[in-house]
């Protein structure tokens, strides 16, 4: 038997675990286009940008079209309604979780947009959510609007007939 153990008289006993947190502090600069999008949330609006070459509307926009490589200049205000392209029912708790499980995370394609983003879906039974379901944004109260997607409380079903698969198949 090897002797690899130090014996302590400390009543707390031997150390067996060590906390080794890893931490990165940095600044994120949104840039011109994303800043416009974020400022839109403060007014209760979805702001995107249209590509002058392919006419696709990006929301949020990073300022250039990834397909054509050109700068986007035309601002577009999107509607409050959209389509769930795909979704996930979250049942697993994880560190930093701010929403009570189970909940639905959906990819939302706003009407008139050519890029989907993730949104919380509420006022919807878990077994009711489906691809193609029509939804609308529910915003926080006016005095609580902030320049972030936190201004959108969640999306909820509109009750309209489902969107045809062909209308969103490109965005899966």
């Amino acid at each position: 038997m090897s002797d690899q153990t130090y014996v302590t008289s400390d009543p707390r006993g031997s150390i067996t675990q060590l906390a080794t947190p890893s931490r990165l502090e940095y600044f994120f600069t949104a840039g011109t286009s994303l800043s416009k999008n974020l400022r839109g949330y403060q007014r209760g609006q979805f702001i995107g940008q249209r590509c002058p070459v392919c006419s696709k509307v990006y929301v949020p926009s990073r300022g250039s079209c990834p397909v054509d490589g050109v700068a986007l200049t035309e601002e577009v205000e999107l509607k409050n309604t959209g389509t769930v392209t795909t979704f996930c029912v979250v049942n697993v708790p994880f560190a930093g979780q701010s929403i009570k499980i189970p909940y639905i995370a959906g990819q939302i394609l706003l009407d008139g947009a050519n890029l989907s983003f993730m949104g919380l879906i509420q006022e919807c039974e878990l077994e009711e959510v489906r691809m193609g379901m029509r939804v609308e944004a529910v915003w926080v109260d006016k005095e609580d609007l902030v320049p972030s997607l936190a201004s959108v409380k969640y999306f909820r079903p509109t009750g309209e007939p489902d969107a045809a698969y062909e209308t969103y198949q490109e965005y899966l």
Partner: protein
Amino acid sequence: MSESPEIFTSPHVLEFPYSRSTGPVIGSFLTALRDGVLIGIKGTGGKVIFPPTEYDPDTAEETSGIVNVGPGAVVTSWGWVNQPLKQHPLQHPFAWALIQPDGADTAMLHVVDAGSESAMATGMRVTAIFRPADERIGAMADLIAFVPEEAK
């Protein structure tokens, strides 16, 4: 369209609260730090390895036999830090140094709090300074620094 050109910037923090199990040897080293004691371990041929490892890095043989070392020690190499970063153990100029405690055959990277760069020299004698006993938790920071022996 003549919106203000204000661009948003915000501080972000990315943090992972990892913890890891120490194993018997590193656990012993940390437990000893909490007691205000430095320990090494015997490797092949009785060589004392500090800080202790489970295996001799030269022969891959299992180590055996805890040995008390220090608190007196010798600086075998060093580099001076004029402007400490927020994450550094001291917030005034200090030296990172390889420090070989009395009774050990290897050195460990730690801090020498010497006051000024001119007080540093390879081969200088230093001694370990620990936090007060009631503040020690069994972590590397229990050992605050080494200081020049005559300064203690």
